[in-house]
């Protein structure tokens, strides 16, 4: 049995190594993707193009405008436009926010009376719209505090743990790595088996004394190894190039990745039992990947999704792995903190491998 498994693994690896394009795909494209995604994926809402309508034109209003643009949040793209038609600017995509300072701004402010400043926001981008108003509120509060110098009855002392530089990259790159290895391992394992079915060597194998478990193990372990390799390359790159912190234990991460790869390979395997051609296998795997990525909490928190969808995410192994990768890398999480996720992945892996095994019969009835 072992001999057979080793032979299968060796054969699989030979085939991968001989395929230049496959190698490029496995090793070079993750780096390219990491580079592009690491830089492109920036969910920070910064440099919001703002039109400023200052009807007060006092030194105080100018102070306020300065405060508004300090830091990277708001950028003035148009000051005192002659036409009070922010809408036109929104339509032409010139700016996404408009600040309207009333003409009694400094008068009321210095008299310690409340002043209303208008903020028009382009709502097409719902995400940045709410964050934009959040920033505006924060800046207004800070301005009030500084200018009026009144002691506050209740103060909030904030302490931010992990990621003090507030880099969204640190949060994204571990996620990107998780996504990359998911796609590659699922794709490779599903295609490998379907290809053998297409060219006829699978049938040839079925005629031999090979057992189904040996076949399954022999065909998935090489891809687990490749997955590890890819993860290592991507992680190393992330740490060295992007400077991603690594707060936890490398051994724990590798160990848990092993369990995770078990699940993705299982999915690839399962897909190979339900498809006939390589093209179909590719489509199905792609489909699974998209679904897994969108419901994993990679881009957007699962809590924001409708309840029904949230329940579905429990079936997504990437959801658990995402928590694990981010937890270990950014927060130094240990098994104590992550055991629910670990158990979930193990259960998923066992279920899917067993289902695939059952579907694979050497004899068709």
């Amino acid at each position, binding site marked *: 049995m072992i001999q057979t498994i080793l032979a299968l693994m060796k054969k699989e690896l030979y085939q991968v190594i001989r395929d230049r394009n496959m190698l490029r795909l496995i090793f070079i494209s993750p780096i390219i993707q990491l580079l592009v995604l690491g830089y492109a994926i920036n969910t920070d809402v910064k440099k919001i193009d703002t039109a400023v309508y200052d009807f007060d034109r006092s030194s105080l209003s100018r102070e306020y405008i300065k405060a508004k643009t300090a830091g990277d949040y708001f950028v003035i793209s148009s000051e005192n436009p002659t036409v009070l038609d922010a809408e036109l600017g*929104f339509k032409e995509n010139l700016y996404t926010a408009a600040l309207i300072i009333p003409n009694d701004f400094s008068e009321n402010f210095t008299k310690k009376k409340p002043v209303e400043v208008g903020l*028009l926001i382009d709502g097409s981008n719902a*995400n940045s719209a709410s964050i934009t108003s959040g920033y505006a509120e924060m800046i207004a509060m800070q301005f009030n505090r500084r200018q009026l110098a009144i002691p506050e*009855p209740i103060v*909030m002392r904030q302490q931010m743990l992990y990621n003090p530089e507030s880099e969204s990259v640190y949060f994204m790159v571990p996620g990107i790595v998780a996504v990359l290895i998911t796609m590659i391992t699922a794709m490779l394992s599903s295609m490998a088996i379907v290809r053998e079915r297409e060219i006829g060597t699978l049938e040839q194998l079925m005629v031999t004394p090979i057992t189904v478990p040996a076949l399954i193990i022999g065909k998935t372990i090489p891809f687990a190894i490749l997955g590890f390799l890819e993860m290592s390359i991507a992680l190393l790159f992330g740490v060295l190039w992007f400077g991603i912190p690594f707060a936890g234990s490398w051994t724990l991460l590798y160990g848990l990745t092993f369990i995770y790869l078990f699940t993705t390979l299982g999915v690839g395997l399962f897909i190979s039992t339900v498809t006939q051609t390589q093209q179909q296998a590719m489509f199905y795997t792609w489909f699974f990947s998209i679904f897994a990525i969108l419901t994993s909490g990679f881009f957007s928190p699962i809590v924001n999704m409708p309840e029904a969808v949230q329940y579905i995410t429990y079936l997504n192994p990437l959801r658990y792995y995402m928590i694990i990768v981010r937890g270990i890398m950014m927060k130094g999480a*240990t098994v104590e903190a992550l055991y629910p996720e670990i158990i979930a992945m193990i259960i998923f892996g066992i279920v899917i491998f067993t289902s695939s095994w059952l579907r694979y019969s050497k004899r068709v009835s």
Partner: protein
Amino acid sequence: MFKIKFIAQKELWHILRDPRSLIIAILMPIVMTLLYGYAINLDIKNIKLAIIDFDKTSTSSDLMGRFYNSGYFSEVTNPVSINNPEMILKKGQANAVLIIRPGLGEAIQKLKSMRNIASVSVDNYELGLIVDGSDANMAAAAGSYSSIVVSQVIKDNLPLGFEMPGIKISRQVLYNPDLKSSHFFVPGLIAIILMMISALLTSVTIAREKESGTMEQLLTTPITPRQIIIGKTLPYVGLAILDGFLVLGFGVFYFGVPFIGSTLLLFVFGVIYVIAALAIGIFISTIVKTQQLAMMGAMMVTVLPSVMLSGFIFEIKNMPLVLQIITYIVPARYFLLIVRGIMLKGSGIGLLWVEAAFLIALAIVLLSVATKLFKLRVS
């Protein structure tokens, strides 16, 4: 002309005879629309907040209620360890921990009895907030929303007629006042799905003929390469447009995304965009040998940039210069602005001509390059 029709017809049969791929071509857009529409919600809401209450008065319970009813925070029922509040953050069960120290009740009383600004004592009462910074946006939001809740509490407990001085932001959201993410995503989805169907399927189908040898067979006949390209891609234009309408219809009727502008204009630009996407598909198919590579290549060169670099989710202006320059050749970038403009803002050609010009130029360039390359490879 006649010959093109033949090839297109053959292609149609291929498509129709492969039920699984067909299902995916039709089902996938619908499921993706559903997923994106529901699942992706980048708004920061429901921040998981755990609260440790040391004050234990009716005032502190009231404060807790305020936080949880604000719509920003959701309650965390898992136990928080007083000695190790970090653990709950590590477990991912909470995004932030609020610590209500003893003395809140007194502080609120002082607030209620304030006569004038000057009489506020300097001994401030401090609330503690520990925030998980891994998700920078969430962290920033947790901070600013907490401040908002607290300042609301202060305002509500001030004596009558007493108003806190300073700036108040009065905000108004134009277009999409309910701030629904689906309004933002559906237009982008149309762009992505059109690109996917056109480029992906086209590259695969040409590669498939090369792989099975039938391309060689076709070329021995009187059919010209140009006719082959047109014939093979025509059905996919149809399929792509069908999918486009599917997503559009779904978005408008199911998710309630508004459609203010002109359908005709959208259709025209849709076709131009699809042509650009097809050109890319053809280009890829001329340089790869197998279907597998065609798919992966198409994925990498079309879908990924369309999702990542088009402004669909991530702001282009936040990207480093190099990437920003690359986005100029991503057709999805222009089409996205066009779709959003037409659908959400009712913009006409007058406002969108810049994007339109870019898109048309890109389509022409891509098409000519792809056709030339195809002819070259073939001869």
